[in-house]
């Protein structure tokens, strides 16, 4: 039914309000546009930003229509937090890549004792996801002295995704972040990129026979 010769790549960023998902989505979108692709990005502002679940979407290709993905249409889900990875997992394609920040941010129902934080979430995701890459972006960001650059570490990892390696990432980052933070953001990006290259994407042979 769909348009002939239109292939759209979809990236979904999921996290907690305040984690920098919107800036991350902006960098990915600008990098895709600079690479000469049609791009759409979608984000939500307002109430949910106050520590609630947030998602941003980036879609690019020769021509993009819907800025939003459907279930099982996302090529790469970048989860800034483990619980959010589980929450949005259904949007990922079966053969898609899941990048997870090994970070736990307890939501209010957990903090106030009404619910438990799922303890085996990462294990479950590892068993289910076709391809998964787990990073301690928070730890790495703390190591270089700026917790806020977790998002750039995750983008660094994402940049190794097939088709995205050729985007002009460094230039885009320099243009997008504030000048005084350009250096540390670039450093964070490189850390993420190196970690992804070192680890490779863990392929789940049981599930999908790669």
């Amino acid at each position, binding site marked *: 039914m769909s348009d002939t010769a239109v292939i759209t790549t979809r990236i979904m960023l999921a996290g907690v309000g305040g984690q920098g998902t919107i800036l991350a989505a902006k960098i990915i979108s600008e990098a895709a546009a600079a690479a000469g692709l049609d791009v759409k990005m979608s984000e939500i*502002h307002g109430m949910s930003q106050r520590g*609630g679940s947030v998602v941003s979407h980036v879609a690019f290709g020769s021509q993009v229509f819907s800025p*939003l993905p459907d279930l099982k249409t996302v090529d790469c889900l970048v989860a800034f937090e483990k619980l959010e990875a589980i*929450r949005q997992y259904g949007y990922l394609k079966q053969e898609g890549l899941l990048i997870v920040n090994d970070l736990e941010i307890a939501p209010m129902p957990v903090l106030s004792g009404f619910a438990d934080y*799922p303890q085996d979430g990462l294990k479950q995701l590892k068993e289910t996801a076709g391809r998964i890459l787990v990073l301690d972006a928070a730890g790495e960001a703390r190591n270089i002295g700026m917790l806020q650059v977790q998002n750039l570490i995750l983008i660094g990892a994402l940049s190794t995704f097939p088709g995205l390696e050729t985007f002009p990432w460094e230039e885009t980052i320099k243009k997008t972040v504030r000048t005084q933070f350009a250096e540390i953001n670039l450093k964070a990006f490189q850390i993420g990129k190196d970690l992804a290259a070192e680890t490779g994407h863990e392929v789940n042979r049981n599930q999908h026979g790669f």
Partner: protein
Amino acid sequence: MNDNQPILMTGNEAIARGVYEAGCHVSSAYPGTPSTEIQENIGTYPEIYAEWAPNEKVALEVAAGAAMGGARAFASMKHVGLNVAADPLFTVAYTGVTGALVINTSDEPGMHSSQNEQDNRRYAEHAKIPLLVPSDSQECLDYTKAAFIISEEFDTPVLLRTTTRVCHSKSLVHTGSRAQIPIAPYVKNIRKNLMIPSHARLKHPEVEERLRKLSVYAESTPLNRIIPSRNPEEASIGIITGGISYQYAREVFGDSVRYLVLGFMFPFPENLIQKFADSVDQLFIIEENEPFIENACKRLGIACLGKEVLPLCDELSPDRIRAAFLPEFKDSEADEAKIPSASSNRIIDKNIPQRPPALCPGCPHRGVFTALARYRKHVISTDIGCYTLGALPPLDAGDFLFCMGSSISSGMGFAKAFQAAAASEKSAESPQRKVIAVIGDSTFFHSGITGLINVLYSRTPMVILILDNRITAMTGHQHNPGTGKTLQGADAPEIDLYNLVSALGFAQEQLFQVNPHDLEAVRNSLKEAMDYSGPAVIITKAPCALLPEVKNSVKETFYQVDRDICITCKACIRTGCPAIRITGGKSLIDPDMCAACGVCMQVCKPGAITGPFTRAKEKAHV
């Protein structure tokens, strides 16, 4: 900026750019998700007088006045804001304009940050003005410019209607340069411009005639376009749509069907619709929320399929459209997918904990809601802003909410019901329940002040808490008449809430101002205010924890729990602070998240929480 290189812009940025390129002179707005960034971006163009008005009615009146005076003027608001501005809207639709007037309404199917899902396309029909509906950022820019021209040509305000997914989606935009538009000469003409009954009776038929002319224009405007299918002979399905729904429909049906995309959606291009319907075997109407286009088709006697299969509630998504129109999808995928709307994160795994928004660490509202915990038997009338989150667990401080400013006026009405009940029961044990209204600084300026006047005038015994966090916080830090700054950040007269309330006639014994981080001060003032026989106002004044100057000042500062002293009474947990949790049976404060407000320390009876501590500068553990 030039015409060659496309720029990624949100719909809101593109509308602002369109306002600029259209040569607009005056722009007024009140912040509201998802419209806020339009005015924020207009504020970056020095050629335009741009302001935050105290509310949407004032914003539209300022813009309408400017348009009456010959300017190209713009007003922008969220969907419920147009309710506030409806009064001037319906009458400026009669007078028309000397210059031009464009009004943006940003609707919120899915209600990400709203209290209802009203479809403001109906305002255009109701007020008898043209309606433009863009579907991506380029159209946001182009339609905004077109709206000014239509306004000028037809002497009418024009409604530009966007939705969250258009406002907050980015796509590539080709920009142009600013048109140099002179102020149109104003000529006094009270029959046209001063609506008393005798003049309005003359104007109403002219409005109907204008509508007729606009419907002729709608037939030929390029804003309404037909997109042919890749195989014209096979095109048995036709889709009439507009706005973001077009993008979703296109995702589903691709170029295998024929589309009529209505960018100029009201008045309806009836002949165009009829001809399009005649050219296809089957007609689908794809639109979010109300059957606006669909009803128009049905009035014309055109057979079509729309809301019989598409949901009225919530946003659409490609999958929702598939489930409605493609039987094969319905059978195979629907059960598994459960067809989430575009508002996502609802379906995937219902067993995992939800993550509702919460008051931030260091939020000055936390002290107020912690103190209010002692007044749970009373009724808390809350309002629209971050403090609405105080109604959620564990703070649980909120009973009801209607709209901006209603905490005070509807709280007063509620208090009258209490008074009537007490009078009729005449029972000695009838509980002394009071109403406590909670409202923020910007919302108070917006429409709380009139309610407060009524409370004093009616001598209603209730307590009004004005939570002054020095900014319009929820929508992302916009200035308001109390902050002492303009939209552009320049100095402005600062309206002092204490002096304002005092000037209304609140005496010293019924007016308090406290620091909300000082729990004892809040509790003492609350007790005095609750004991007072008439109305009492407490102003709590401390800046939003997310303001850069506040954030930077506490970046390295935190409180901590002595786990040997902690008795796990959970008093700190009940403050609802995202930085505090129970681990290993004791409270723990995350030093990275802690903003050192000290409220948890003040509720910790055993004295287990101490601070503030300052982190050592060198903390890297490489």
